[in-house]
């Protein structure tokens, strides 16, 4: 298992007029998200018993197309599971995610329309949305963490897993996967692309779970098995926790 990216960075409350906002950068992607809600829904979006979650994704350049609509629909169904939508009937929770920066691909002309799903950006979008929702104080069932993993098949031997792969790595990979977990450890989102076996998917699942749901204290014996500390990858849950700690401490400085 190898990882290519530096530790994630986040800032909360970057947009003064939105109810909640977050700026998140990880693995070459920078995304700014804003959350407004619960607000009055338009008549056609109104649901008698629950809030409507509206996700809008804007690409770094140009206007959004079919790919963005597809990403929106995936995120929308995941985030609806997290937000307590039944608490706010006939309301709307609006989440806007603006991609600010994405890593350049030296090998492929990015202007070309690619039919495939953009896997590398999905964890960044998911993470930004969760942070912005927390910043807005929208009531939620749980928090979530996400990661992307690519499976590179070697000539011989076991396939290697690349956490937070680059665009190039995804293109050369045998298969690419995005997984998100709730803070309860439940699988929230699983998108896969390419050729892979069930065994490979199982190892991807275990790796992603280790990154997203690692509990704070690590056991001595476990570390011996997983050898070096550096190969364990980023700890997303710890990152979320420390980001929110800083925000709450700032808000409640007067206590």
């Amino acid at each position, binding site marked *: 298992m190898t990882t290519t990216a530096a530790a994630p960075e986040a800032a909360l409350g970057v947009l003064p007029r939105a*109810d909640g906002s977050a700026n998140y950068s990880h693995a070459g992607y920078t995304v700014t998200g804003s959350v407004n809600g619960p*607000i009055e829904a338009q008549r056609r979006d109104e649901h008698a018993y629950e809030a409507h979650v509206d996700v809008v994704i804007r690409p770094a350049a140009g206007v959004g197309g079919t790919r963005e609509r597809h990403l929106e629909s995936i995120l929308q169904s995941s985030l609806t599971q997290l937000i307590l939508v039944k608490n706010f*009937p*006939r309301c709307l929770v609006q989440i806007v995610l603006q991609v600010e920066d994405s890593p350049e691909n030296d090998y492929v002309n990015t202007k070309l329309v690619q039919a495939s799903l953009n896997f590398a950006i999905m964890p960044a979008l998911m993470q930004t949305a969760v942070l912005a929702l927390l910043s807005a104080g929208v009531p939620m069932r749980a928090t979530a963490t996400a990661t992307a993993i690519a499976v590179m098949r070697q000539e011989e031997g076991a396939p290697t897993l690349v956490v937070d792969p680059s665009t190039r790595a995804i293109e050369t990979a045998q298969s690419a996967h995005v997984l998100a977990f709730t803070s309860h450890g439940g699988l929230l989102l699983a998108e896969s692309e390419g050729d892979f076996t069930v065994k490979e998917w199982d190892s991807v699942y275990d790796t992603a779970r280790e990154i997203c749901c690692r509990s704070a204290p690590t056991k001595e014996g476990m570390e011996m098995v997983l050898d070096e500390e550096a190969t364990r990858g980023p700890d997303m849950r710890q990152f979320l*926790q420390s980001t*929110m*700690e800083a925000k709450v401490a700032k808000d*409640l400085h007067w206590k």
Partner: protein
Amino acid sequence: MAPDGPLVLPGETIDPSLVPSHPKNPLRLGPGLRHIPPTDIVPTVAGQLITNPVKNSMWIEYNSNRYIPSPNDLILAQILRSTTDAYLCLITPYSAPATLPHLAFEGATKKTRPQLAPGQLVYARITPASANRHMDPELECVSATTGKADGLGPIGVVGTTSGSGSGSTGPGCVFDISLGFARRLLMARSREDGGVGVLEMLGGEEGGGLAFETAVGRNGRVWVGSESARTVVLVGRALQETDRAGLGMEGQRRLVKKLVREMK
């Protein structure tokens, strides 16, 4: 003062030893917590868990910008328009309008009811009956038990009709603040418990004894009124700056001195 609890994130489990237990009083859950029958109490927002063993209550202390109506909150609403028997009021931008019945004012009858124009500010209470999330919130400017206004009513009008409300005079302006800051301003001992002394300082010797009045709404709005428009702007700026920069007592004192010096 309630003992300080740990930081919680949505969906985290709360240590059962932190939940207050009282032999007689039922446990009361405040904002940011939900009860999943039979025994689970789960936070829904990120914040600090506060427990009060005396009142047998617990809640999450956090700051946000979007007001969610809850019964008995005092809020600053703006009249949008009038229907046959009620005014429609704006509590927060882009949320469903609240209703304020024409008869929910002190001494109002079908013949003598206050005539409020669109844009008029009203200091009102959210009625205890409108706790249902399926209904739009309902407001009142009169206490249902005593029939008195108790300071509620239209704000910033000269000579209010039918004698209702406080009938404040002079120019005034509304300033937006965060919900946490509004709650701190509304505390009975806001200087000691909430750490806000900026209003006392402005009216005291640091501010050169400025004369102004304020009305703080739980919905993150504060109305500042004074004979002098300069004072209104100064007080509003002082409040917004204290909120935005998260100033402590010493910072507030310095801010007041700076603003007063600039005004002269």
